C-alpha cells in the first residue's frame, strides 16, 4: 500500500494490516495525528482508515445489550438517549472527552486503542463489564475490556488485528455513573476519573446492592477495577459507612504518579472521594431514585443557577 488506504470491510482492513506490518489504523485521528506530529508515533507509517467500513459505526440495542461499533464517535455515544439513561457512565464520560469538535471526530475504538492511562471511555466500559470483539487474520476473539489495555499506550491487539465492537449489558435495576476531577471545567484530561456501576435487588432507598464495580482512570498505568467491593457492599444499601470503605478501597487501588494534573497523594485521595460519590449516584439510578439527567462532572451539586451575576 501507499501512505493511506480506506478499506470497505473488516476483512479487507485485516488483510491490508497483515500485509503491511508498519501500517497503523486511523479512525478519528484525534490522538494519532498529534502523536505523529510529536514523534510518539512514526509519522511515515502508512495509515489504514477504518471509517469507511460498513457497519463499524453502528450503535444499537439488542434487548438490554448495547452494541457499540468501534468507529462510533464519542459524540454519538454522548447523544444517545438510551445510553444516557441505561449506561449513564458512558454518556457522562463521553460528554467530558475533549471538545465538541474532538468528540465529533474521536471514536470509541480509538480511545480504547490509544490506551492512555486517562482514557475517558475505559472506566465506564469496565464497570459495565463490556466485552470487546477483535478481528484478526485468525478470525474473531472476544476479550473483557478490563484486560484490553496492558500498559500506557499498549493493548492486547496483535499485529494485523483491529477492534471491531464493544458490547455490554444493562440489566434491570442497574445504574452507573462517571465522575472526574480536572483543573479546568472542560477540555481537560482527567486528573482522576471514576466510574461506578451497581445492580440492586429492587427500587427505593433501601434497595440492596447485589453487584457493584468501581473503575479508576488516570491513577495507574491503565484504568483499573477496584477489587473486593462485593464484600463491602453486597446485601445492603450503600450506607455512609460502606461508602467510606469503598473510598478506602479505591484509594488503595491507585498507583498514581505526580504530574501537571495532580500529585500522587491528591489523586489517591480524590479517587476515594469520587468513588463514593459515583457509587452513590449509580445506586440512586439503579434504585430508581435519580431524577434524570447527567450528574455534575465532579458529582457535587453545583450552584451556578443561583448566582446573582447576569448570564
Amino acid at each position, binding site marked *: 500500500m501507499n501512505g493511506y488506504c480506506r478499506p470497505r470491510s473488516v476483512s479487507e482492513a485485516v488483510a491490508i494490516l497483515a500485509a503491511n506490518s508498519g501500517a497503523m489504523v486511523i479512525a478519528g485521528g484525534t490522538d494519532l495525528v498529534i502523536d505523529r506530529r510529536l514523534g510518539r508515533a512514526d509519522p511515515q507509517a502508512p495509515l489504514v482508515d477504518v471509517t469507511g467500513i460498513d457497519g463499524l459505526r453502528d450503535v444499537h440495542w439488542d434487548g438490554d445489550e448495547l452494541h457499540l461499533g468501534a468507529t462510533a464517535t464519542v459524540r454519538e455515544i454522548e447523544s444517545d438517549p438510551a445510553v444516557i439513561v441505561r449506561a449513564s457512565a458512558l454518556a457522562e464520560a463521553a460528554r467530558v472527552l475533549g471538545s465538541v469538535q474532538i468528540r465529533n471526530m474521536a471514536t470509541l475504538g480509538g480511545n480504547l486503542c490509544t490506551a492512555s492511562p486517562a482514557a475517558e471511555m475505559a472506566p465506564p466500559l469496565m464497570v459495565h463489564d463490556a466485552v470487546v470483539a477483535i478481528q484478526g487474520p485468525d478470525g474473531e476473539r472476544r476479550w473483557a475490556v478490563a484486560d484490553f489495555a496492558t500498559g500506557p499506550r499498549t493493548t492486547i491487539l496483535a499485529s494485523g488485528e483491529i477492534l471491531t465492537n464493544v458490547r455490554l449489558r444493562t440489566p434491570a435495576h442497574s445504574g452507573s455513573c462517571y465522575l472526574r476531577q480536572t483543573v479546568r471545567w472542560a477540555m481537560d484530561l482527567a486528573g482522576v476519573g471514576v466510574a461506578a456501576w451497581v445492580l440492586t435487588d429492587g427500587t427505593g432507598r433501601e434497595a440492596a446492592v447485589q453487584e457493584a464495580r468501581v473503575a479508576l482512570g488516570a491513577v495507574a498505568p491503565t484504568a483499573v477495577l477496584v477489587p473486593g467491593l462485593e464484600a463491602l457492599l453486597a446485601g445492603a444499601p450503600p450506607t455512609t459507612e460502606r461508602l467510606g470503605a469503598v473510598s478506602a478501597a479505591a484509594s488503595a487501588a491507585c498507583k498514581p504518579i505526580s504530574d501537571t494534573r495532580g*500529585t500522587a497523594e491528591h489523586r489517591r485521595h480524590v479517587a476515594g472521594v469520587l468513588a463514593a460519590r459515583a457509587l452513590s449516584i449509580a445506586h440512586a439510578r439503579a434504585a430508581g431514585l435519580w431524577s434524570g439527567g447527567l450528574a455534575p462532572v465532579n458529582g*457535587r451539586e*453545583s450552584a451556578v443557577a443561583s448566582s446573582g451575576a447576569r448570564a
Partner: protein
Amino acid sequence: MRSDYAVVGKRIPKLDAPDKVTGRTVYADDLKMSGLLTGAIKRSPHPHARILSVDVSAAEALPGVYAVIHAGNVTQRPFGFGHDNIPLKDRVARCVGDEVAAVAAVDAATAQRALDLIRVDYELLPAVDDPFEALQPGAPRIHDELDIEGNVSMEWNFQTGDLAEAEQRSAVIVSGSYSSPQAAPAPIETHVVIAGFDADGDLEVISPVHMVFMYRKELADCLGLDWRRITVRQPPVGGSFGGKIDIDAHDFIAVMLARAARRPVKLAMSREEEFTGTRTRQPIHFRLRTGAAADGTLLFRHAEVVSDNGAYNAWGSHALLVAMNTVTSMYRVGTSRLAAKVVYTNKNYGGSVRGFGNPQATFAVEQQMEELADVLGMDPMDLRLKNANRPGDVTPQGLEITSCGLSECLETVRRKSGWDQRRGRMRRQHRGLGAAAYVHVGGGARIYGSDGCGAMIKIDDSGRVALISGSSELGQGSETALAMIVAETLGVPLEAVSVSHDDTDVKPWDVGVHASRTTFVAGNAARMAAAKARDELLEGAAEVLDRPARSLTIRDGVISVPGEPTATLRYEKAVRRRLLREGSSIIMTSAFYDPPTQRQDENYVGNISASYGFGAHVAEIEVDPDTGMVRVLGLWAAHDVGRAINPMSCEGQIEGGAVMGVGLALSEELPVEDGRFPAPNLHDYGMPTTMDAPPIDVTLIETADELGPFGAKGIGEGGIILPPAAIANAVADAVGVRPRSYPIRPWKLRRWIETGERSHVDKHPHPVPDENAR
C-alpha cells in the same frame, strides 16, 4: 457630564471584527511573496550549557538551504536591559530554547532537516531554576560576564516614612507570603517575522510587534544597520496580550538570515516555541506585611520581593515598576517600603504581559486587606473605603491622583453582589465572596524620554477622513475608539473615518502600545489633529456660507450656522471648495501628544502617568473541599474608565481581561522541571475555556478625566488584575483558608484546607481567639 455626543459613548462593534471573524484579515503568516524562504531556529535543549562548538557544514551542504548562521559567522551586538542577551548565543546557553543557530531554506521540511544536521557540542553547567536557590552563595552563576552580585540582575528599592514608628503605632499587623507562577500570554497568533532587503540594501521587516519605532532602533543598534534605512510594517496583530512588545532574539535572527541568504525570510514560531522561545509572565514572590490602626487606618506596607526573571532582562525585568505602584499607592498607605530583587534563573525569561506585575502585587496587597479587616472585625469593604484614594491625593511615590472613582467602584460591586447580606454567610455550602481593587496607570506610563504619540488627519475629495496614527491595533479596540474620537471631534459620520497605523514610513512616531495608554495618548493625539482639521474645514465653509468660521458648527457631516436653518453645507463640499480653486490646498493636519508626566527619579518618585485607572471586583465561588475544585459562580466588575468612548469595547476589554484573570487564578501555569517546560502546549497549559468563564456583570464608572480625550482613561489591563486576588479572598470566605499562591489548583487548595493555612497575625488589636483570624 456632557452626553450630547454624536459618536462618543455609543456602542459600536469593533470595526475590524467582521473581517477577523469571517477570515478575511491577512495576518503576517498569510503573506506570500516571491522568493520567500522559511527560517528555523536551532535551540538549546539544555537549561545551562557552555557552547563548545557549532558545526554547520552538513546543514550548509543540504540542497535547498540558503543560509546557516550561528554566532561564529554573523555580526551582532548584545541587546536587552544591561545588554545581557545576544541573538545567537556565542558562549553559553542560559535557558532551554536559547537560540544557537538558524537556517533559511526553501521550505519548512528542508529547514527542519538542516536544523537536524547542525551539530552543537555542549558542556553541561549546573543550572538553577528557583530564584531563592539562585540567591544562595555558591549557586551557579548565570551571567559571569556581568559585573553583578550573585544572580541579582537589578534591585528596586523604595521607602518613605518611618517604618519602625509605623509598626509601633499599628494596632494590628498581618504578614504573609504570596506567590505567582510562570504564565504565558499565549495569543492565537504566534510570533512571526518576515525580513528582507531590497536591491539598495534597505531593510523591510514585517512583524506584528507593537512597539515598532523602538523595535526599529533596537534592530539597527544590535545589527549595525542604518535605522533610516529600515521600514517596519505591522500587519494586523492576531493577539498579543503584551507578548509582542518585546523584541526577541528571533527578530534579529530573521534579519541576519535575510542578509546571509540575500532573500526574504520568514520565521514563524510553532506553538511549542511560543511557550519556550518567547516571553512569559514572570513569577513574583512577595513577603508582605501591612499594619493598621484600630480604626482601620492603614499605617504601613512593607514588601520584600523576589522576581524570578529567567535568563535575561526583557521587559519583564521592569514589572516591578508597576508592582511597586500597587504596594505604595493602592489606598492611602502612608509609610511604605519595598525591597525587590530581580533574580536570574536558568529558564525562559519574563516579558511584558497584560497587567505587568500588577496581578501578582494585587494578589498580595488585596488578600492582606481582607486579612486585616477580619482581624480588626471590620467589613473589608469598609476598610477599603476608609482608606480609598481620592481625587487630589499625591501618593508617596509622587503619583498624582486626579480623576478617581475607586470608592464608587467599591460601592457598586458591594451593592450588586449582595456583599453585605452574603459575605461570610455561605460557608456551609462552601461558597464565598471575595473582593479586590486596583490602581493602574491609565494615562500613559513614561518609561522612555517621550511617552508621546503622533497622529495625522487627511481628508480627501470624497470626504473620507484618514487617521494615520502612530499607535497600533492589537485586538484591544483602539482602532474603533480612535475613529470615534476623530468622528466626534470633526463632526463627521463614523463610517467616513478610516484608521491606518501599519507602516513606519508613513505613520508618526509612537513609543508603542503598552500600559493601557493607547486610548489616552493616541486618542489625545488624534483629537488634537482632528481639531485642527475641523478648523480648516470650517474656514473653507466660512467662505461659502459667508459667515465667520467661529460662528459655524459641524455635526453628522453638516456644517451649519446656529439659528439659520438654511445656511448649511456638507463638509465634503468644504473640502472640495479648498481643493478645486486657484491656490488649492488639501486638508492634512498633524499633532503630537506627550502627556504631562515625569520619568521616575532614582528613588522611584515621579508622576509616571497623567491619570490613573481604578476598579473593583467581587468574585463568588464554590469550593468542593473534598476534591479541591473551585468553580467561579459570578464576577461583578466596576471600572473607572474616565469616559467610555465605546462602552461595548470597554466591556469587552474588562470581560476578556477578567476571564484571563480567572485563568491566572485557577489554572494557568507553565510548570518547570529541571529548567524545562514538560508540556509546552495548549492541551496542558490551563487556559480557561468558556466553561470556566463565569457570568460577568460589568459597570462602567465615568469620572471624566480632565486630561483624557473626552475624559477617557486606559482600561486595557484593568480586567486581568483582580481575579487572582478576588478569587483567593472568596476561597478564604468559603473555606476559611488563605491561598498562598496561584493558580489555586485542586491539590494545592486541598492541602491548604488540610493544613489549615491561616493568616499570620503579628500583632493583634487585642487578644482574639484563633478562629477569628482567618
